């Protein structure tokens, strides 16, 4: 329950990003403000402050003010880091959840069809999953991202531009399909041999009815348990891709892109990298805890085992 509350707070904060940007930060989170200034304690100072010590080399983004404007300081483009973190959280969460849904839907279909029909259908689908599984997941995601972000993805009449967040959603959603489809396939194969399914078969139920009435209701809890877990994994994958500049494209942000922005400022402005990193970690942990909670809620046997 606690994890759900934390997650809701994070989600609400991210949803409120435009409000924070316009009413509190009073800066544009997506426009460079290299030559901008800010008033602190009655003094006007540049957002990017040239060093005045020694030889006066280098320019430092303004440090966290811990006040409304530039609460967490600025990045190297003079943009408000706090605003960008909230906007970035929207992208990270959207990509994480959307790709988890896509992954679970695809994996559910493939796992159920493969496990239920078996034989030739299973052989073809399983070998397809094996091929996908043969690639290290990050390597595959990186390859797809590099290719698709340098051009764009066209599927029939639909074209996803290289800057669209639909691209990382599709890429991440696809690369994790085998990880979800495999256990579902195994579960369906097991269910198919159970007495209640065999009884329905004996009663002459057609395949579609078996799938709809006997298999799907028993597989659905597993898929639902997978959802938050995959969302957490996918968020981390998105952050990794964005950190490598092959996920969310500038001027949009995600927690991964902001960590990347902060790497070059680690010595002087560590908060730029640390803050999105902490949020990413908290969100991933809460999603994992939520996944466990959902599993417990949907699996009475597990609860009984826990009680014993």
């Amino acid at each position, binding site marked *: 329950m606690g994890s759900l509350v934390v997650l809701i707070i994070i989600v609400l904060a991210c949803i409120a990003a435009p409000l924070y940007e316009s009413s509190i930060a009073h800066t544009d989170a997506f426009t460079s403000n290299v030559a901008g200034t800010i008033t602190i304690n009655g003094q006007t100072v540049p957002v990017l402050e040239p060093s005045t010590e020694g030889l*006066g080399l280098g320019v430092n983004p303004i440090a966290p003010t811990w006040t409304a404007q530039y609460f967490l300081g600025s990045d190297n483009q003079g943009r408000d880091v706090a605003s960008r973190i909230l906007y970035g959280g929207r992208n990270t969460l959207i990509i994480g959840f959307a790709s988890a849904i896509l992954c679970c839907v695809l994996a559910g279909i493939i796992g159920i069809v493969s496990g239920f029909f078996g034989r030739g259908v299973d052989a073809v689908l399983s070998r397809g999953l094996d091929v996908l599984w043969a690639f290290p997941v990050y390597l595959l995601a990186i390859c797809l991202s590099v290719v698709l972000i340098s051009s764009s993805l066209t599927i029939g009449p639909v074209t996803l531009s290289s800057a669209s967040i639909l691209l990382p959603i599709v890429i991440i959603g696809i690369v994790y399909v085998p990880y979800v489809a495999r256990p579902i396939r195994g579960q369906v194969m097991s269910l198919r041999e159970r007495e209640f399914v065999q009884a329905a078969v004996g009663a002459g139920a057609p395949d579609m009815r078996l799938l709809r009435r006997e298999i799907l209701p028993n597989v659905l809890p597993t898929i639902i348990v997978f959802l938050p877990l995959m969302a957490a994994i996918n968020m981390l994958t998105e952050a990794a891709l964005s950190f490598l500049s092959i996920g969310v494209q500038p001027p949009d942000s995600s927690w991964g892109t902001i960590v990347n922005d902060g790497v070059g400022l680690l010595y002087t402005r560590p908060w730029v990298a640390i803050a999105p990193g902490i949020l990413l970690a908290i969100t991933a942990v809460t999603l994992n805890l939520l996944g466990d909670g959902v599993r417990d809620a949907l699996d009475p046997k597990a609860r009984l085992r826990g009680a014993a």
Partner: protein
Amino acid sequence: MRLHRIATVGVSLLAVGALAACSSGSSPSPSGSSGAAASSASAVPSGSASVGNDSDVRPYDPAHAGGTLTLLAKGAAGTLDPKVNYTLQFWQLYQGTYDGLTAFKHVDGEGSFTVVPDLAESIPDTTNGGKTYVFKLRQGIKFSDGADLTTDDVVSSFQRIFKVSSPTAGSFYNGIVGADACIKAPETCTLEGGVVGDKTAGTVTINLTAPDPEFLYKLSVPHAAINPKSAPTKDAGNTPIPTTGAYMFKSYDPNTALVMVRNPNFKEWSRAAQPAGYPDEIDYKFGLTVEAEVTAVENNQANWLYDPPPADRLAEIGSKYASQVHVNQLTAFWYLPLNVNLAPFDNLKARQAVNWAIDRNAIVKLYGGANLAQPVCTILPPGFPGYEANCQYTNPAGDTWQGADLEKAKQLVTESGTAGQEVTVIVADDEVNKAVGEYVQSVLNQIGYKAKVKAISGNIQFTYIQNSNNKVQISVTQWYQDYPAASDFLNVLLGCASFTPGSDSSINMSGFCDKKIQAQMDDALKTEQTSFDEANKKWAAVDKAMMEQSPMVPVMTPKLIDFISKDTGNYQFSKQFYMLVDQLWVK
């Protein structure tokens, strides 16, 4: 060239032909003399009038000889072959290892632009209307493998330029008689009638097809270094070629280290051209991150790092280690080429809008601040031959950069009818280039375009943006002089002959070719043979005319930071080849 001189300049310049040289007043000339002095003797700079005094050459101090100098770089710079490598990183090392017939003076400051005789006894007067040079070789010079230097080595070295397809074969050396045939069939290159050795007299005669006032400069870069006749007729790769200079290469593994030791057969013949070095050994180690390199130099575990210090360490080294930091102005500039053959920048108003919109001071900040760069409005960097202060796109108006005018830019974009078009900014994927790219993207969005930024590996970005097939609309790039001549910026970067559609070696990235301006440049080149002052005025006019057409956005001229350890002494900065590595003291 670029700081990482990638082999790109060559082919595109085949037709650039006789590039201009020299300068007036305080500006350098290949011969170290003023234009007037040179032109009084012959139509081209004359050797006899050329060699200035050597008062700027520091005497050798044996008390500091010895020790091991440790240099650091994130990565190696590719082949060790001096005829093929085109990177500053290794050209710096070639100064203490290889020699040409002539050399840029190995000194600190302005004098380093002066050409002095190296393996040749003197710089000869030209004959045959400026088309023939007769060099007499110094006697008694040996290669590091013990072989004597002969005229055969010189002749084969010039042939080797073409046989190994040196990146500048088609641009710097295509004026040698016989070069055309060598470019067509490199493997059978003889340069017959072009480079002729006379073993008995110890002379080498070089015949050109036309006078080339910049030829002495071209003889002084590593691609014209003299290698033994036995050197392979293909890229030697990681195998060191014997040297004539103070040092030789002992071993080279691009993944780990390059080791240089003293050349046992070296005896100093000209301190200005090839001075004896101080360290006994120079170890160039590869593989650390730049952050770790900075820390190593701070901790005295290494003497110098090649890579620019990261932005977040600049303030630290500029304050805590100020006495170990050397900041030097470069004759170079950062600019944004605008493709005049592609929408939206095929529209003059759209190009001018970008020039009005980009805040040069903002880019200076992204580079590291006003102490590391200076905003520019012209193609020729301040202080360069032909430079005249002139700023057409600044608000308020002035001869130097004052500020951007976004409103005017928006108005021009609207008038051009290009608002709302998609624009992609292509940048290299290092920290500073990416930051500049993001800034440019932001500005383009503000003035009415839909901009994207695409960062690609620095190893390929420079060639990628040159190829018109890649349909690059706007990019962020840099140009560092090959040698101090206005033509090396104006004619090379925006001359008609520098644009080769569909080629990776099309240095005129804007695809700009204005017949009228080209005629002005041709006239300036011709004028250089008679009056450098007059020619420089013409170059200034060319610069102004080009900026009216706005094929690029000049943004800033950078400075270079050398950070050395506290135990390292005798720092000297050559404006031509940067820090003199072998002159550093570690004892």
